[in-house]
């Protein structure tokens, strides 16, 4: 019964349906974009309609929202946070800083492309994206989850060496725990 492809497909559909309607976001604001989260969460835009709500710790969260620029110092914490999160987990890159560096493209301490260091499922562009854009990003993520295409975590596991090499390029002194995969 377990190996039956048809029943597995049905299980997947139900599982993905459940997952897409309870996206808990880790309350960890990294850049200036975190200021767009309160209006998204509160009564005017009310992201909880889509099942999006805050979670206190990485182990309870499903979505890691990278809200803006990442210094190498923050990147270290973000990598640790991401690796502590339980499957299923998704990453949303928020704002142009995560895509190509944005206005910090010539800064001495900020990375310029987030998907070199963490697997990004959805990018929301804009500087800053308004709550409508944020909600559209979440809607897109829900679509991908329903279609079974939001597989960033699997990519990260399979290509861990590539991600690690990139991370160690910008973090010269590596004092991080190695988790079991």
């Amino acid at each position, binding site marked *: 019964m377990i190996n039956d492809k048809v029943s597995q497909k049905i299980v997947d559909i139900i599982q993905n349906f459940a997952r897409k309607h309870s996206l808990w976001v880790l309350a960890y604001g990294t850049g200036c974009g975190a200021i767009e989260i309160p209006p998204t969460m509160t009564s005017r835009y009310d992201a909880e309609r889509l099942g999006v709500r805050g979670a206190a710790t990485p182990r309870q969260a499903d979505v890691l929202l990278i809200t803006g620029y990442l210094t190498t110092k923050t990147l270290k914490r973000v990598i640790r946070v991401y690796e502590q999160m339980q499957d299923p987990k998704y990453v949303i890159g928020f704002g142009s800083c995560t895509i*190509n*560096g944005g206005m910090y493209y010539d*800064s*001495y301490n*900020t*990375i*310029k*492309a987030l998907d*070199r260091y963490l697997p990004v499922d959805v990018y929301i562009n804009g500087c800053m994206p308004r709550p409508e854009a944020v909600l559209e990003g979440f809607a897109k993520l829900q679509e991908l989850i329903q279609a079974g295409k939001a597989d960033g975590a699997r990519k990260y596991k399979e290509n861990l060496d590539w991600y690690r090499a990139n991370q160690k390029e910008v973090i010269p002194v590596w004092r991080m725990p190695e988790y079991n995969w």
Partner: protein
Amino acid sequence: MEERKKEIIQTITDHFKDAVSNPYDGNRVDFTIPKQQIPAILFYLKDEMGFNHLSHISCIDWLEDKQFELVYILWSYTDRVKVFVHTRVDREQPVMDNIDMIWRQANTYEREIREMYGIRFAGLEAPEEFLLEDWQGPPPMRRDFDTYAYAMKTFWDRQEARSNAQDVRETIRRRTGEELPDFAKKYSR
């Protein structure tokens, strides 16, 4: 206020022969002084003139003069006057006196200046690392530090994402068929 300002300038120039007063409007008094006399003038301003509050220590890189300029900004609650004390430090051998025994908060500013400009503060007791974690390059706020070249060398750059930048109206036009205004066309590459 003007009388009090004149009084402050008079007292300081009487006590410190090397202090030069620079004229400023408003509630600002401004001095330039050699760096050896900085602790003395700050002690005097704090204990005798009532400038109890150290607002900030600022640093300026005068690359052409081969000097750093340090600015100590003090504030008096009773007179409501601020005092700027300027001094110049040699850029090749940047050593300055530590003043965190006068104001504890000076410690933080000095650590930041040490990290960002590479000025040594004699007698400053603090860990070497402050804001920059595991920093291995030269002090980043110096003017001869090429930030752009360093960023391009250190961090991977997504070139095409910049050269293909499109105005947001371009996307709207593609989605809805809305006419793009002429002025917006030049922003789409």
